[in-house]
C-alpha cells in the first residue's frame, strides 16, 4: 500500500511543468544543486505575477527569488530549510503547494472525501434499488403527443 502511494505520488511528479525563465548567469556550477534549485523554484510563487512560479516568470522579483534560493542552497540549506526561510519572509502565499495545515485541511482532503462519499452513496443507492426491484414505468404520453404519435403512425409508408 505504501509503495503504491509512493508510486502515485511519483506519477504526479511527472506532470511537473518543465518550463523555465532562468537566465544563463543564474545557473549554479554544481549540476546537482542546480537541479534542486529548479525543483524548489517550481514550487515557489512569483508574488507579483498571476499564478506563475518563479521558475516560469520573467519578472525581476522572480529573478531575485531564484538567486535567493540558490544562495540558500549554496549556504548548505536543505530543501525544507529553504522553503521555511522563504515562508518566514514572505508568508504562506509564496508556496504554490500549500502545506497540510489547519487552514488547508479541507482543500487537501476534498478529493478523497468526495470519492469515498460518492462511492458510498452510489453503493447504497444500487443496493436500495436492487432490493426495491422492478423498472418504473415511463410517464404516459400527453394528449398532444398522442395526436402526434397518431399522425406519425398514419404517415408510415404503406409500401416499401
Amino acid at each position, binding site marked *: 500500500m505504501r509503495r503504491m502511494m509512493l508510486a502515485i505520488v511519483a*506519477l504526479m511528479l511527472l506532470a511537473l511543468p518543465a518550463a523555465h525563465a532562468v537566465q544563463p548567469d543564474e545557473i549554479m556550477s554544481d549540476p546537482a544543486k542546480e537541479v534542486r534549485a529548479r525543483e524548489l523554484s*517550481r514550487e515557489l510563487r512569483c508574488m507579483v505575477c*498571476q499564478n*506563475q*512560479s518563479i521558475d516560469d516568470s520573467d519578472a525581476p522579483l522572480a529573478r531575485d527569488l531564484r538567486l535567493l534560493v540558490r544562495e540558500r542552497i549554496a549556504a548548505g540549506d536543505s530543501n525544507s530549510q529553504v522553503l521555511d526561510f522563504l515562508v518566514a519572509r514572505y508568508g504562506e502565499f509564496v508556496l504554490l503547494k500549500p502545506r497540510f495545515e489547519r487552514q488547508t485541511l479541507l482543500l487537501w482532503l476534498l*478529493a478523497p472525501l468526495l470519492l469515498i462519499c*460518492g*462511492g458510498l452513496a452510489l453503493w447504497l443507492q444500487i443496493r436500495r434499488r436492487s432490493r426495491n426491484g*422492478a423498472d418504473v414505468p*415511463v410517464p404516459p404520453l400527453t394528449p398532444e403527443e398522442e395526436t402526434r404519435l397518431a399522425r406519425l403512425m398514419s404517415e408510415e409508408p404503406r409500401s416499401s
Partner: protein
Amino acid sequence: MIAESGHYALVLALALALIQSIVPLIGARLHDAALMNVARSTALAQLLFVGASFIALVTLHVNSDFSVANVYENSHSMKPLLYKITGVWGNHEGSMLLWVAILALFGGLVAAFGNNLPLSLRAHVLAVQAWIASAFYLFILVTSNPFLRIANPPIEGRDLNPVLQDIGLAVHPPMLYLGYVGFSISFSFAIAALMEGRIDAAWARWVRPWTLMAWIFLTLGIAMGSYWAYYELGWGGWWFWDPVENASLMPWLAGTALLHSALVMEKRNALKVWTILLSILTFSLSLLGTFLVRSGVITSVHAFATDPTRGVFILLILCVFIGGSLSLFAARATSLKQGGLFAPISREGALVLNNLLLTVACAVVLFGTLYPLAMEVLADYKMSVGAPFYNLTFAPLFTLLLIAVPFGPMLAWKRGDLLGVTQRLLAAGVAGLVVIAIVWAWTRGGSALAPLAIGLGVFVIAGAVTDLVERTGLLRLPFATALHRARGMPRSAWGTVFAHAGLGVALIGIVCETTWNSEYIATMKPSDVAHVAGYDLKLDGLFQRQGPNYREMIAEFNVSRDGETLSVMTPSKRSFTTRGSSTTEAALLTRGASQLYISLGDANAEGAIAVRIYHKPLVLLIWWGPVMMAFGGMLSLSDRRLRVGAPKPARARQRLQPAE
C-alpha cells in the same frame, strides 16, 4: 452613427429578450400555440439585432473610429486588418458582446432547427434562453457599453496588448465562447424539463447534440489556448493551472460527464435526475468562469473591491441563475422517477464511475481555484494554490479514469461481464506492458514512472482499437465483411473510438514532454553553436526589421544534425512602440511530433544574446489528442440518430411521391 445604431440594436435585442422571457410561458400555461410561437420569432429577431450590433462594433474597429472609447483603447490605425477585427474581442466590452452574440446564435439555432421539439418544450427552452440573454444585455448596457463615445476624439489609438496580436488568440475566444455558451442550451433544456415536470429518454436525445456541439468547441478552444500559450509566452509551458485556464477546464470536465450521463439516459432511461443536475452545473460553471475572468477578482481581490460594479453585477447574475436553478431542481427533482435498473458491473455502471471521477476532478479544480479567494476574504489568510497542488490531486483521479476508459465501451448494458472484458482487453494490456518494457530499457533519466504512464496511454489507445476490431470482426471475419461492417458501424461508435484514443495520445505527449524535455540556456554570440538533443544550432547573426506596428530583432539559427543542414530558425523579439511593451516570438521546428523551440532573451552591449533552446519530444501529441477527441465528437454529431432537427429529405421525398 454606426456606434449609436449598434447601441440601439442592443437595446432592441434586450426588449425582444424581455418579451421572449414572458410571453411563451404564458402561452404554455394557456396552451396557446400562437403565443408559444412568439419565442421562435423573437429568438430569430434577437439574433438579427445582436448580430447587427456586433457587426457595428467590428466596423468601428476596422475603420479605426477613435471617437469610440473602446476602439481608442484597443486599436491602432497601423494594426493589420486581421488584428483590428480580432481586437474586437480582445477586451472586456467586446468580448461580452461576442458572448451575447453567440448566445443569440444558439437561441436562433434552436428556434430555426427545433421544429420537431414539442411546442411547449421549445417555448420553455427559448424563454429560459431569453432570461440569460436579458441578464447579459443588461450587464453590457449598464456596466460595459462598448459604444461609448469620447468627447474629444484622439488622433491615434492605444493599440491592442501585443501578446493578443496573434492568430491563435484570434480564434481562441470565439471557440471557447461557443463552448461556454453552448452549454446554456442544455441548461435551458434542463430548466424547461423541471418546469414542465416531464423528462424522458427523448429529452436526452434532444439535448445530446447541443451538448456535444458545445463540448467540441470547448475542447478545441482549450487546446488552441494551450498551444497559443506554448508558442507565444516564450517559455514553452502549455498548461499553468492558472485560474483563467481552470475556468475553462471546469465546464469541460462537467460537460464531459454530462455527455456520458446523457448517453445512459437516452439508452436506458436511467440517471435522469443526475443528468439534469449536471446540465445545470455545467452551465453554472461556465457562468462562474465568465465571472472569474470578467470581474478581475482573480487578479486581485482588492482590485475587485475598488471597482466592484461589473463584478457585483455578474455575481448577482451568477447567484440568481445558479441559486434559482438549483432551488428549482431541489423542489422538482423528487418528482422525476428513476427508471432503468442496472447492475454495478455494466455499461451504465462504467459511465457512473466516469461521472464520479470527472465530477470529483472538477470539484478539485473548483476548490483549488476558489479556496485561496475564500480564505483571503473570510479568514484573512493569504495562500496560493498552483501547479504542484493539482499535480498531486488531479492527476491520480485522471489516472484512475484512464485505467477504466477501455473497459467502459466494451461492457454490456444492464449487466456486464468484467472478467470477459478483461480477457478481451488482454492484447491491449500486453501492448501496454511491452511498451513499458521498451521505454524502460531505452530511456535514461526522468521519473521511473514515466514508462508506466506511457504504457497507460498505449493501453487506452489499444483498448479503443480493440473495441473497433471487435465491433467490425476484423480478425474473425473475411476482410471484405469487416470493411462492410466498419462502414455500417454507427458514427457515434467511431466517435467513441477516436475520442478515447485521443485521451491516450494526449497522455503520451504530456508524459514525454515533461520527462524528456531537454533545454539549453546560455548567452550566445554570432557563430556560437548550441548542442541540444543531437541537434547543432549555430547562431548565424542578429538582424533588425521594421514591422507594421513594431520593430523586431531577429536571430538566425542554422539547424543541423550530424553535419547535415535541416533548416533555418528565426526567433525574434518584437517591441511595440505604442504600448512600450515587447513580445517574444519563439521559433519552432517540427520534426515528426517533436519540436525544437528557440526563444530569445535580452541582448547585451557586446552583441551577445540570451537564448533558451528546448527540444520537446512528442510535444505535438498534447494537442493532437484533443483534436482527435473533437474529431470523434464531430463523427458522433454526424450520426443519423442524433441529427434531431436537421431537415429530413427522405420524408419530404415520400410526401412528393404518391404511394403505390
